[in-house]
């Protein structure tokens, strides 16, 4: 593991530049499949290889709650421009995470809480089938045929979140 400089107060952009220069990208085969509308096909989230490297090394990414605060600001009807971007840069960065351990229970959970709509991950298991499933890339259909009809299986129980 590479020793991360003390980055609290350093612009997140500069931290990402440091991470790009110093950390080995990590291509993960984790995929998050979720449905946020009955009228649309299932969506699939793939983690970025440089982002995973930063998450696993620690000390680079801000707490996920910072993104929630910015999302709240952006949801205001009179939103024009972010005025609390400093939260990204001045809040103490989160420590190292693996897929399933560390802050937030691992970077998979962090990524879900950052990039999947809250309406999905806060209530993923409320219903007849899960709205969200974590799987490996090779568990997805091998071709793109009928992509717009992809849905999470009706057969999955809501306690089977990790199919890997």
């Amino acid at each position, binding site marked *: 593991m590479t020793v991360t*400089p003390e980055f609290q107060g350093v*612009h*997140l*952009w*500069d931290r*990402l530049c*440091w991470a*790009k220069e110093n950390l080995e990208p990590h*291509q993960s085969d984790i*995929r998050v499949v979720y449905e946020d509308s009955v009228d*649309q*096909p299932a*969506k*699939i*989230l*793939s*983690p*970025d*290889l*440089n*982002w995973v490297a*930063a998450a696993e090394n620690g000390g680079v*990414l801000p707490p996920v709650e910072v*993104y929630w605060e*910015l*999302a709240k600001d*952006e949801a205001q009807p009179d939103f*024009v*421009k*972010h005025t*609390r*971007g400093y939260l*990204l840069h001045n809040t103490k960065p989160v420590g190292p995470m693996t897929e399933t351990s560390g802050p937030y229970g691992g970077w998979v959970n962090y*990524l879900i809480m*950052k*990039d999947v709509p809250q309406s999905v991950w806060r209530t993923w298991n409320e219903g007849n089938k899960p709205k969200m499933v974590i799987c490996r*890339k090779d568990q*997805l259909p091998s071709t*793109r045929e009928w*992509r*717009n009809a992809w849905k999470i299986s009706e057969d999955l129980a809501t306690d089977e979140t990790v199919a890997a």
Partner: protein
Amino acid sequence: MASEIRVNTLKDASGNNSVATSFVSNGSAKLRHASSTDGASLFGSFNVSSLGDTATGKETINFTDSMSDNSYSVTHGNGNDHNGSIRILLTDTLTASSYQVHAYNTSSALSDGPTCSTVFGDLA
């Protein structure tokens, strides 16, 4: 940081052609992404946290460092779809934290294939 140079203005060797460092940083691309033909894998990027495979021909790119608003510019690189058709790429659903790329083939149908994009604008 191991080292840094702090200057406000850059000039050439003869002292001419000055440019403010803020001009350089403001004009730099703030994100880049390149994704593969399956629409579900990133193979080159900067300032991206994840790629969303949203539907046929639709991808969502999520920022790590958010933009200050949704008035940034996105430029696209084009790629052929699975049938070799030249595609048209459009930006859709811009927010300060993500945007979508929609790819159409010459029949004006949404179509999968490799895409890349860069973003210019102000960070949050």
